[in-house]
């Protein structure tokens, strides 16, 4: 499956649905490898494409990296006090991982609920908070953790964000906080409660 084929054959929704179904079966075999199939970025009606749709209430999360790559994230998988885990949301009924856009990549972290600011706490559950993993500076992954300051750290230019305080910028060139994704815990599984608060992404490009 490649970009050219899809673009050349846009006629009819029946065609779209067939290709989405094909993609689902491909995804089940590559689930969690974090491979983004490129052609979905050019589909005009993104609402029809579950992989590129932003995180939606009810979505679960899957690991992007590590031994549990592709598996659903449970609260017990998240170490209390950090570090964060990179994740993509997953639409639960068809198991479609929403990795069609990198802007859907999030980080999950479990903290002491008593240490959360009121705004962070309101969007958390059992101490689990979720934020966009895309640095607001130039879009690199906020995938590192600083143990001395307990802050989320961007790999590229060193911006730091405080996960207890609604991902406020505490150091570095990032111009604004990471977007926050409200979550809840259902039967031990972390689930999206509602859409992003704030816009994931960055300003430079």
């Amino acid at each position, binding site marked *: 499956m490649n970009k050219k084929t899809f673009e050349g054959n846009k006629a009819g929704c029946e065609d779209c649905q067939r290709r989405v179904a094909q993609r689902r079966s491909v995804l089940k075999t590559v689930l969690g490898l974090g491979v983004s199939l490129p052609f979905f970025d050019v589909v005009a009606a993104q609402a029809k494409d579950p992989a590129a749709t932003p995180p939606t209430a009810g979505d679960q999360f899957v690991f992007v990296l590590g031994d549990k790559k592709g598996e659903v994230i449970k609260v017990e998988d998240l170490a209390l006090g950090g570090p964060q885990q990179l994740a993509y949301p997953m639409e639960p009924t068809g198991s479609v991982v929403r990795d069609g856009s990198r802007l859907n990549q999030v980080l999950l972290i479990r903290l002491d609920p008593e240490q959360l600011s009121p705004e962070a706490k309101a969007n958390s559950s059992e101490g689990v908070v979720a934020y966009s993993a895309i640095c607001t500076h130039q879009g690199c992954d906020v995938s*590192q953790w600083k143990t001395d300051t307990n802050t989320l750290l961007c790999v590229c230019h060193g911006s730091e964000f405080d996960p207890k305080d609604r991902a406020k910028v505490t150091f570095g060139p990032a111009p604004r906080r990471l977007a926050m994704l409200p979550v809840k815990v259902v039967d031990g599984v972390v689930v999206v409660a509602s859409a992003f608060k704030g816009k994931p992404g*960055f300003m430079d490009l």
Partner: protein
Amino acid sequence: MKTMKGLPICVALLGGLLPIAAAYGAGYTPVTAARLSNPEPENWLMTRGNYQGWSYSPLDQINAANVKKLVPVWAYSTGVNSGHQSPPIVNNGIMFVSTPSAQVIALDAKTGAPLWRYKRELPDDFSALHNTNRGVALYGDKVYVTGLEPVLVALDAKTGKVVWEATLEDYHQGYYSTMAPLIVKGKVMAGVSGGEFGVRGFVQAFDSETGKPVWKTYTVPAPGEPGSETWQTADTWKRGGASTWMTGNYDPDTNLTFWGTGNASPWFGDQRPGDNLYTSSTVAIDPDTGAIKAHFQYHWNDSWDWDEMNAPMVVDYKKDGKTVKGLLKPARNGYLYWLSRSSDGIGFVGATNYVKQDVFKSIDPKTGRPSYNADKVPGTGKKASFCPSLWGGKDWPFEAYNPKTGMVYIPANENHCGFLEGKVQEYVAGKWWTGVDIPDIGFTVAKDAKFFGDIQAWDVSAGKKVWDYKFEKSMAWGPILTTGGGLVFTGGTNDRKFRAFDASNGKLLWQVGTNSGITAPPSSYSVDGKQYIAVVSGWGVDPAFQQGLLHNLIPSWDAAVPEGGVIWVFALSE
């Protein structure tokens, strides 16, 4: 976007007030293969001035005697931050400047009046490690630029409208593109970045009129192809690197394009045993067919992130009384290389280090192959320090060759070292994958160093350094322009200055403070008999990252240089 389209013709008739009408006059002068092979002194048709990559302007109206009268005549804000690395390209009074985020601005080169602007809408989820653009290429009636997400775009030179786009690769796989295309005989060639993201580099050629792909040549061979035996562990070639992020040079005599290739991937040689062709190399590619005709590798099994991205200059020099049809390259690895070129090979002639380098134990006098000091080779679980740091004796900023002085001018950096320790990193498409995290990249400076940036002038045939100019409190990140008027122009320092030196002896003759730090190549052109020097000032990307590290090491240095691009044009005051 500033455009005059749609205005009634009666306005145009009112005394030629419209900048586009005035600037384009009788029409845009098409750029032909003949013009590119023999560019007029009054124009700057490609990023390094000529196919041979000399960064030399023959113009001499501005010279060592009068350069102190140089003043700004116009300036123009690009409206973009991040590192500006592209030279003003000029064709008969029309200037084209590309900027970060792959925008292109066209202006009247004499007055600075804006003509049109192309602004690319990039995908929401795209980010590039190096948000910059190194310049446009001209051919026919079109302007060619790489679109950052790796695409090649052809614009109408008169209007800036898109004529065609060709996708180079998928950015989700870690590819992006920042380089200025190279155009030879109607074929537009482009390369890609992504050496930190597990890409497999290539050069691809497209038809200049239609954008149809003509040939694609990978710079890492697949099993069965020549050189594939240098990737001993299965599948390491697939993510081997050898990115092609700087523009090639061209020798019309041998009909060969010369391309530099980037670091091997991941960064630690023991994770991919073998010489790893053609990483950290120069490859000679036939522009008609894409065939690799020859290669020279500067250092095998790279473990220092020493890209050899710049193509060597095509320069003839004397060796033992005989003229050598040569290639000349100050390499990132800290050595200045004299090579020879012919239709079927690249030969090693000699090499001398131009900065302190402690990795090479020796260099084979026949082949140029180095041997290494084992304790200076980083590996997986093996920390090693080495000098110079990963940014090398010089990075991508261009050296320049002046045929009148016979000298090459090198923006070198001394007194810095690095250290690295590798680990096996999980590969995920599109993610940083080098074997070491950015915060763990080691960078040190000599505490008692008296200088860092060092503009060095070497007599090419004599093989000796003639003069140098040391910067006490800055690295040198400025590409160099040299001119027939006997001058060397460069920016590159954290004090935001643009300087002119006497090319024969290195005396500082003129300087001016600009808005930001200059990491772009200067160019020179002339309109209506008057010579101009133009450069874009706008700091960012690696120089900015390094400046932050330098501030941590030397607190008296500012942590940052202000960003924001401005095109500066200078001329002699009346």
